[in-house]
């Protein structure tokens, strides 16, 4: 393959934006080219390699592909290519391609031991390294570098081809009637304390209309989560394999920076003793460190010792890594909606691909919440989204055809407007993984009393008998002893 070919028949490279493929722009690229042209070697090849090196760090191509692509060219140009061929690349490293590994192998190129050619080569490599360095900087946070201790996780989901799922939800606000079944479902699943409504439903009114609207608010499990970024101990992190934003309860120091940085207000700190004791949540009779010590497998490895133990116990506290990230947090640490990682890791009695709030919503006959893998077009979430938009398209198409004829369309959906989808505060760049169908609350909206009060699920209204309230502050202000004489008022309606 010659470099001319690649230039001619490559239609549009993903990194070719306008005139330059380099994020720093054309001027930078030109400077790099000049530097390369000063050497006696092929500048085009250098530029090609630099460009694909960027794709490599972005995870679009594999290390093997990169080597295979350029092996002949490099061999021809430098009369030898002693870089490792793909057979030599250690398969263990494939998953975590880091700039270091590529740079190292590039640096190891032995150019026949000739001093001059080595120097020239280093010059070319220098230009390449500048690109690589930039690319590595832009992607470093996908996964921690090699040698990171076990408890250090990344803050971004892995690139698409390296992850298994990207869990998220499609929530149809037009189907929600504010029954709060999802709120209760979440409390039952996780044993959260009074007022820590991981799942929360806004009832709100617009200034112009008296219509009651709802906004269902779980954690948005952002792909660019501010909470994970700011955590000083990486307790709050993003699971690379499936994008879940979780808190490691054993690492969290309770500084509450995640809560401060989250624009959605989904975090609930465990200010005092949790209402539900750990013994009622924990089905596995083991200490957390013992669970971690069990031989564990990769994501979805059902044969590992840890998976067996968790699965036998119908565990709802640990995830596949053996980390305590599920159910309510212990005192002094941060909690929030988890999207049920123990379910997604397949070791509870509930199937993978479900969450407690969705189950509760379905059981109520509402089916407003659709959880699923947003990467997978066949997931429940994506299928629902597609169907809902299709219904609307059909309606619109019908309208296009009718023109002046008498209108007689029987449909519940409004024929005059396309159904809108939105993500909450998307312009903050958080890349939330909750897609809403329906109207987005505007700046003049006001939260109003919900048709079903939160208190309905207090006491016997939930599995644990805990009190359920909307606003938590008052409850907390009573201090550790709790509000006085409240016991008599509990009970569902």
């Amino acid at each position, binding site marked *: 393959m010659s470099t001319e070919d690649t230039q001619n028949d490559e239609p549009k490279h993903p990194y070719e934006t306008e005139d330059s493929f380099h994020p720093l722009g054309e001027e930078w690229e030109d400077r790099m080219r000049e530097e390369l042209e000063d050497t006696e070697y092929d500048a085009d090849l250098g530029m090609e390699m630099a460009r694909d090196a960027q794709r490599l760090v972005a995870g679009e191509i594999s290390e093997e592909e990169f080597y295979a692509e350029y092996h002949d060219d490099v061999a021809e140009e430098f009369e030898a290519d002693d870089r490792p061929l793909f057979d030599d690349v250690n398969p263990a490293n494939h998953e975590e391609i880091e700039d270091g590994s590529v740079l190292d192998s590039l640096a190891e190129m032995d150019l026949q031991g000739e001093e001059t050619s080595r120097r020239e080569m280093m010059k070319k490599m220098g230009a390449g390294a500048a690109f690589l360095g930039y690319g590595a900087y832009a992607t470093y946070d996908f996964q921690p570098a090699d040698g990171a201790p076990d408890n250090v996780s990344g803050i971004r989901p892995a690139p698409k081809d390296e992850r298994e799922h990207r869990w998220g939800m499609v929530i149809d606000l037009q189907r929600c009637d504010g029954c709060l079944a999802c709120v209760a479902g979440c409390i039952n699943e996780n044993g959260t304390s009074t007022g820590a409504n991981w799942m929360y439903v806004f009832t709100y009114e617009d200034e112009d209309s008296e219509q009651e609207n709802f906004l269902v608010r779980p954690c948005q499990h952002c792909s660019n989560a501010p909470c994970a970024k700011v955590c000083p101990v990486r307790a709050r992190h993003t699971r690379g394999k499936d994008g879940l934003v979780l808190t490691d309860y054993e690492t969290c*120091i309770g500084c*509450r920076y995640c809560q401060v940085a989250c624009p959605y207000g989904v975090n609930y700190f465990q200010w005092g003793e949790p209402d539900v004791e750990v013994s009622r949540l924990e089905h596995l009779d083991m200490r957390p460190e013992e669970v971690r010590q069990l031989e564990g497998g990769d994501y979805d490895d059902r044969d590992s010792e840890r998976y067996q133990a968790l699965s036998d116990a119908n565990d709802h506290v640990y995830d596949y890594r053996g980390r305590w990230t599920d159910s309510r947090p212990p005192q002094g640490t941060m909690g929030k909606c988890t999207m049920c990682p123990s379910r997604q890791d397949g070791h509870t009695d509930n199937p993978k691909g479900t969450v407690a709030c969705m189950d509760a919503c379905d059981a109520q006959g509402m089916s407003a919440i659709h959880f699923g893998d947003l990467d997978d077009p066949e997931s429940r979430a994506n299928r629902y989204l597609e169907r809902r938009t299709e219904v609307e398209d059909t309606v619109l198409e019908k309208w296009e055809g009718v023109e002046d004829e008498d209108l007689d369309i029987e449909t519940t959906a409004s024929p005059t407007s396309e159904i809108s989808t939105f993500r909450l505060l998307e312009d903050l760049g958080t890349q939330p993984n909750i897609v809403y169908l329906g109207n987005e609350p505007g700046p003049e909206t006001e939260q109003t009393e919900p048709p079903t009060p939160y208190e309905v699920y207090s006491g016997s209204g939930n599995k644990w008998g805990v009190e359920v309230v909307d606003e*938590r502050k008052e409850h907390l202000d009573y*201090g550790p002893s709790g509000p006085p004489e409240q016991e008599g008022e509990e009970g569902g309606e």
Partner: protein
Amino acid sequence: MATSPGEPEDIIRPILNTSKKYYIAFGVAAAIALLWSAVYGWQLEEGLIVTNLADWGSGGGSPWGLYIGAFIWWVGIAHGGIILSAAVRLFGMERYQPVARMAELLTLGALSMAGLYILVHMGRPDRLVLSVVPAYPWTVRTSPLAWDVTVITLYFVMTATYLGLTIRYDVYHLRDRLPNYLGPFYSLVTLGYSEIEEEVIERMVWWLALGIIVLAPLLLHGGVIPWLFSLVPSMPGWDGAVQGPQFLTIALTSAIAGVIILSYICRWAYDWEHIFSDAMFRGLTNWLGLFGLLFLWLQLQQVINGVYAEPIAGETAMVARITQPYYIFAIGTVIVILAYIFAQAVDQRQFSLARSVVASVLMLVATLTEKVLFVFEGLLYPHFSLYEAVPGHYFPSLVEFSSLAGTVALCTIFFLVILKLFPVVELHAVEDHHDDHEPAHDEEVSS
């Protein structure tokens, strides 16, 4: 007032003699510190539920409050203190040489209190080391709080080195007049001392001072500490690049106020009128005025930017802030203090040491109030304002208030102990027979 320079005997008097006042001060401070440690013990036992903090959002509270506000306040005093001391060394501001070490000590004491506040603020302080250290190489790339821990450590090391280097000279030259029971301590401090090192130490300290002066605005109180707030996307009340300069001016204002109070107490307790002269206090008062003015100027910038054609969220946050009674109290207090400082700068007869000390105390109250307000007011007005419970409410609980008394008491104990260990005034300051008559300089500074 007397302008004769002090004698070495003056500066070692606190080490040799212990007055009744000292015992009383120590007893009171220790009692308060003990009481607070009991309160803190209760917080450890029950959790942060004993504070009036709560979740923002549906919870209707503020997750950060007095603890973080007081943390910034102490860090500010610390940063300002060392800047003052470094400026004395770099710019040859000899008039303030007698307070240079006091400022350094204030830095160490205040920085320790700031560190303590980090601990007090945590839900799980027991995990601080084991959680922070292993993840540090990764979190330091992303978390402003990890940067924060870094710069505080850096600052502590720099200041301690600075102090450690400068006391070698003093201890060596005063050694035979210092008490023998502290012999091991003095041997440690002067380990390997030789007279030829003095020039080298001077140079090292000069470079350290330069580093401190350069780092403070760029990275420390003008950088990382304000970035803790201004970098998060959620709270418009914290937005803006002005936070860096704003934090720095507040730090300098607080530190000068702190130094005025400390040196006044020492002057009163040890009859150091000739060392801490009135002229020096007047100069410090003018500097307090200058930085106070910068503080007000930057507040004005924020207020104007906030209320004039700001996006809704920003305007709401700013309007809420300027109508908050405590904010009006804090800014009003600064204005009153500035009125006094301006008056005494124009007409020297208006100056009195007592007034300057009162102004300093009030200034510290004002800066503390502003810092605490900055923290929780920012959190009460997030971008996402749909929650009915937002803006929530927050007023510190007694547990939180008691921490202020506790940390001030601990800082006092720190000083009382230091007073017994080595001179809090540099030997150089009483050796150099400099002239203190520079009335023209005062006016320059204050205008």
